[in-house]
């Protein structure tokens, strides 16, 4: 009986906080509603009012379930925090997909859910049809989702908390973030948003001016600037037109977008340290060191490989296309400055392999980027060096190995093990994705490229992700994007929690 009571109590806590997060995101639908109103897109406005009404009803009812037994909000345990983070992402995926479906730009609800999860996880692959005729309201919504997803829905909800609660940190960690910028989690969440909003103003203004200079109309240039900033900063890769970044035909526009997505792929802790005057952190940090080394090597190798194949007629074209796409892949942004099929037809096996590797490595931990992260790669590499050094040194020497990430940390075996396990999890997801692709008849390189892009939350496509691809692959890709973004643990906690519940229910009955 006591176990059953505990279970009810758990459900109430999870329901209460999930409802709270749903409510916050539902309230944000006011922005696309206003956009549609300004542009007189009446049907789109109605789509968003319907979606927000459904979302608000769901959110309020979830809160009510949690409130009935006077939930003690300070008694949130790790399992609750993880379950809230992972469950709210699933609930929100369905709710946020409603305006997509009502717009008539998707073939099915599954396609709509796919696009929402792609936005939330900052992946950036799209199944939406006829992007060039999309309303301003829906464009605003898709880019907002990717921007919010980059910082995290839980982070947003915590920012708006009136009071600090004991469970906030557990939910924050559940969303795949662990950096503490200030001593309390609410303050940290606010700092994350502050950093993002300042960059939003600077980045949008820069792209707006450039947009006008390259021939866009001032109003249109503003919205393009806002969308491209949101996509770049969150390392998402969405764009308002079919041609993605190629629509603008401008090297300056691409360069500014590239600077923004590189900045977006850095740890929020690093941004905060630089703001506080610790500029040397850029050079000392294990993550930036790892990023600079891997991106430099990848660019050099890709340039050499593609030069051998004579893919580009001159150095300017080569540098512009290769460096942009390699860095877009490495930072897990997914903006493409060439067509998807050109990767398969022109880049050759070597070029594709380089992209697969950098897509899997990804950006920094606690940033908007995906992949198994530079921090983990750095830790595992340092761990390997440490083991070799230990083997070569005298048994009596007790040297402590350290690495620098915001502050100095001791390189412990447990940390190396945890990092290696997460990397293994990513590789398993990638392997299954590749197997599934080949099962459905795609070539090995195409399947591996797309699986790496999905697992690393990148969004570059080689042409596999289309509305006509098999349903099983769509479902698997949704799961892979979700697992990759939340970094497995919280999703495993939710699965374990549901599994445990079913087991107990079966025992009782």
């Amino acid at each position, binding site marked *: 009986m006591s176990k059953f009571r505990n279970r009810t109590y758990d459900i109430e806590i999870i329901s209460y906080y999930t409802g709270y997060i749903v409510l916050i995101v539902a309230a944000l639908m006011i922005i696309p509603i206003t956009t549609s109103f300004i*542009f007189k*897109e*009446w*049907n789109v406005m*109605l*789509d968003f*009012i*319907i979606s927000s*009404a*459904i979302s*608000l*009803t769901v959110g*309020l*009812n979830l*809160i*009510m379930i949690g*409130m*009935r037994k*006077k939930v003690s909000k300070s008694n949130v345990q790790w399992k609750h925090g993880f379950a809230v983070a992972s469950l709210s992402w699933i609930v929100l995926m369905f709710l946020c997909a409603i305006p997509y479906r*009502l717009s008539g730009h998707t073939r099915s609800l599954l396609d709509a859910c796919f696009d929402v999860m792609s936005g939330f996880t900052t992946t950036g692959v799209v199944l939406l049809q006829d992007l*060039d*005729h*999309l*309303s*301003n309201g829906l464009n605003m919504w898709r880019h907002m989702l990717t921007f919010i997803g980059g910082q995290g829905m839980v982070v947003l909800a915590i920012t708006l908390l009136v009071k600090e609660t004991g469970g906030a940190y557990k939910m924050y960690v559940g969303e795949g973030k662990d950096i503490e910028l200030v001593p309390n989690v609410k303050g940290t969440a606010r700092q994350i948003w502050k950093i993002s909003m300042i960059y939003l103003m600077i980045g949008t203004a820069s792209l707006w001016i450039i947009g006008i200079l*390259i*021939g*866009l*109309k001032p109003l*249109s240039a503003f919205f393009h600037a806002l969308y491209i900033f949101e996509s770049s900063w969150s390392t998402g890769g969405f764009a308002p*037109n*079919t*041609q993605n970044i*190629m*629509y*603008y*035909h401008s*090297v300056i526009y691409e360069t500014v977008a590239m600077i923004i997505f590189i900045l977006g792929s850095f740890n929020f802790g690093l941004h905060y340290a630089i703001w506080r005057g610790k500029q040397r952190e850029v050079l000392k940090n294990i993550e930036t060191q790892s990023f600079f080394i891997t991106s430099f090597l990848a660019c050099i190798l890709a340039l050499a490989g593609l030069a051998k194949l004579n*893919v*580009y*007629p*001159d150095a*300017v*074209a*080569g540098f*512009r*296309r290769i460096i942009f796409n390699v860095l877009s892949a490495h930072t897990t942004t997914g903006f493409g400055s*060439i*067509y998807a*099929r*050109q990767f398969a*037809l*022109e880049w050759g096996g070597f070029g594709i392999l380089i992209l697969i590797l950098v897509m899997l490595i990804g950006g920094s931990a606690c940033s908007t980027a995906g992949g198994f992260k530079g921090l983990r790669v750095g830790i595992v590499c340092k761990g390997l060096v440490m083991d070799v050094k230990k083997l070569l040194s005298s048994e009596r020497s007790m040297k402590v190995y350290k690495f620098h990430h915001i502050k100095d940390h001791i390189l412990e075996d447990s940390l190396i093990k945890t990092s290696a396990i997460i990397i293994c999890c990513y590789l398993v997801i990638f392997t299954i994705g590749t197997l599934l692709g080949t099962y459905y008849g795609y070539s090995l390189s195409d399947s591996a490229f797309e699986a790496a892009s999905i697992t690393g939350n990148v969004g570059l496509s080689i042409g596999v992700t289309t509305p006509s691809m098999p349903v099983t692959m769509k479902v698997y890709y949704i799961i892979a994007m979700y697992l990759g973004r939340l970094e497995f643990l919280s999703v495993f906690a939710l699965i374990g929690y549901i599994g445990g519940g079913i087991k107990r229910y079966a025992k009782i009955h």
Partner: protein
Amino acid sequence: MQKFTKTLLIILILTFAHSLNVNAEDISEINDLIENAKELNGQEVTVQGEVIGERMVRGDYSWININDGTNAIGVWINKSEADKILYYGNYKNQGDEVRITGIFNRACVEHGGDVDLHNNSIEIVQNGHPVNERISYPKIITTSILSLFVLISLLFLLKTIKSNKATD
């Protein structure tokens, strides 16, 4: 006179039918251009599609983008030619349907490796037009009913909060 009219008519029909055939065969799909980019690089091709987005003026030239339903491509076009286009496709407008003949570049040297078309001629096949948006009445009814649901849920929540406070 009758003989002359008949001959003229036959010639006109044949010419028209022939030109139709040629056009249908010569028009390439954008996806086909990308798939066969190496073979078609530097060759004159014809594509037909809707002009989308907006025109971007760069000096004496302009960039326009066209979408033929398979994909979209940028066209580098003389400013005076671009003036012919009146409607650009977006949510509110159906863009002009144009037929463009030009040189296809797989990785354009002039434009930093862009896949583009350098246009020689542009022909408006069908004029674009504003899209009339009809407000959906079922959506208005659904909105009203769902708003009521939100209101009821809100009232229940306030009641729960009140009763919780009373118990405390």
